[in-house]
């Protein structure tokens, strides 16, 4: 059985693509055949973060228009065996996608035996974001601990509940997961950021994970490496927890409180 999972947020810059890349990579590392689709037509980034930008020949729009077949379009990851990337078109815009075409691609991916189809949504709530979420069975709603991000996530949750295929056809609703990214316990303590409890109270969505603010994320995306592959980085570890939890493993939430600095560290920074 294939599961279609959309990574969405409403607001831009909260870490959707970083999450989609790490999550898809993590699922594949567990041995599940996974494809991650970049729905951000015109602002393609997933290929950079996955480090496959020089191997893109055809793209999602070519596939929808029938200019290329699935095997020609899918880019196989060089590091992880069961991981594939379906890149967006950089030269087109969101209007190039249509529900019929996206639906056909989803069906084809299911037939190819993909267990997880990860849809990396563009920012906003317009057609591009709606295409990305329409066929979803589950949603990772990515939120930063600040009010504007929260409101946009809330709006997106409303759209998931009313405009997705499952909503339109009266199926079981999309299963929602909350993922808080760029969490900084120090700033939560000083009151600059909302706490995990505040966010859950406001959004009322089950928490899948909290990813701490980390320098490793930027370094990894510059290097074209999903951050989950960096086992030393806290964000990488948090994503590994997220994937394990998603697959049914129980893991305690980490990185929620400020690290106690030792005496030496406090003295010498």
């Amino acid at each position, binding site marked *: 059985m294939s599961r279609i999972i959309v990574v969405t947020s409403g607001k831009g810059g909260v870490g959707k693509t970083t999450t989609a890349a790490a999550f898809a990579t993590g699922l594949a590392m567990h041995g599940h055949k996974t494809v991650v689709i970049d729905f951000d037509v015109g602002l393609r980034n997933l290929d950079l973060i996955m480090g496959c930008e020089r191997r893109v020949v055809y793209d999602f729009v070519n596939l929808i228009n029938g200019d290329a077949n699935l095997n020609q379009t899918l880019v196989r990851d060089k590091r992880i065996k069961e991981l594939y990337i379906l890149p967006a078109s950089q030269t087109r815009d969101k209007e190039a996608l249509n529900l019929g075409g996206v639906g056909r691609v989803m069906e084809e991916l299911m037939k190819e035996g993909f267990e997880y189809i990860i849809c990396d949504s563009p920012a906003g709530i317009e057609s591009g974001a709606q295409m990305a979420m329409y066929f979803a069975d589950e949603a990772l709603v990515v939120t930063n601990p600040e009010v504007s991000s929260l*409101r*946009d996530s*809330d*709006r997106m*949750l*409303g759209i998931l*509940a*009313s405009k997705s295929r499952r909503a339109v056809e009266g199926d079981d609703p999309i299963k929602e997961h909350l993922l808080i990214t760029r969490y900084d316990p120090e700033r939560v303590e000083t009151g600059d950021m909302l706490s995990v409890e505040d966010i859950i109270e406001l959004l*009322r969505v089950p928490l899948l994970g909290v990813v701490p603010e980390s320098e490793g994320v930027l370094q990894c995306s510059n290097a074209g490496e999903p951050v989950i592959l960096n086992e030393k980085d806290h964000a990488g570890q948090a994503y590994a927890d997220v994937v394990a939890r998603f697959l049914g493993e129980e893991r305690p939430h980490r990185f929620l409180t400020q690290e106690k600095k030792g005496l030496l560290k406090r003295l010498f920074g």
Partner: protein
Amino acid sequence: MSAVERPVPFTLRAGMQLMTSLRLTDPACTDLEAELQRQVARAPAMFRGAPIVLDLQSVAELAQLPDFDRLRAALLAESMVPVGVRNGSPEQRRAALAAGWALLPESRQEEPLALPEQSAPEQLRQGAKVVERPIRSGQQVYSGGDLVVLAPVSSGAEVLADGCIHVYGPLRGRALAGVQGDTSARIFCQALEAELLSVAGHYRVLEEIPAQLRGAPVQVRLAGEQLIIEPMPALGR
């Protein structure tokens, strides 16, 4: 086979329907389109496809004939469906019929506005609508009767009802009760964090919720022209 057993493609039935009426006060229809657009914009979901009865009672004494074609076009432009006219002078009714409007029986009350509209609207009002999922920012939920929400109403969301509104999660968005003008409608909530509260068009924006009411269970009602926001009366003891 006898003709009696032939299946009939429809059944014809008389029935009472609740319809929104547009009470015309200015037969010249000054600014009709703009005003209609403004009022519909406040609750588009409520008016979309709604049957509209044109009530001519207020202009029945006047000799001027309203422009029925213009009224029809204006209603259709706002996605409402003009159905017929009620009341009005014989000339006005003749002109309406000629313009393709149905003639509805005259309303029995001479001065329905002056009546405390209690029994009639409540008999016709629909049952309560119950919502169990959170109402998210940007969503709008309307009930033709009472509205009961067993989940939070997010900031940026809007709940509307012809009758009362009950919210058992935190109320963080806007709540408008008695939107058809029922001044006896009330809003009840478990935790007041609302952005705007309104009963029968009397509204109040809550830029600053008084500290003793913030997050508290409250009821909102209308006393004359004034919107009262008060703590829920303590029960028992």
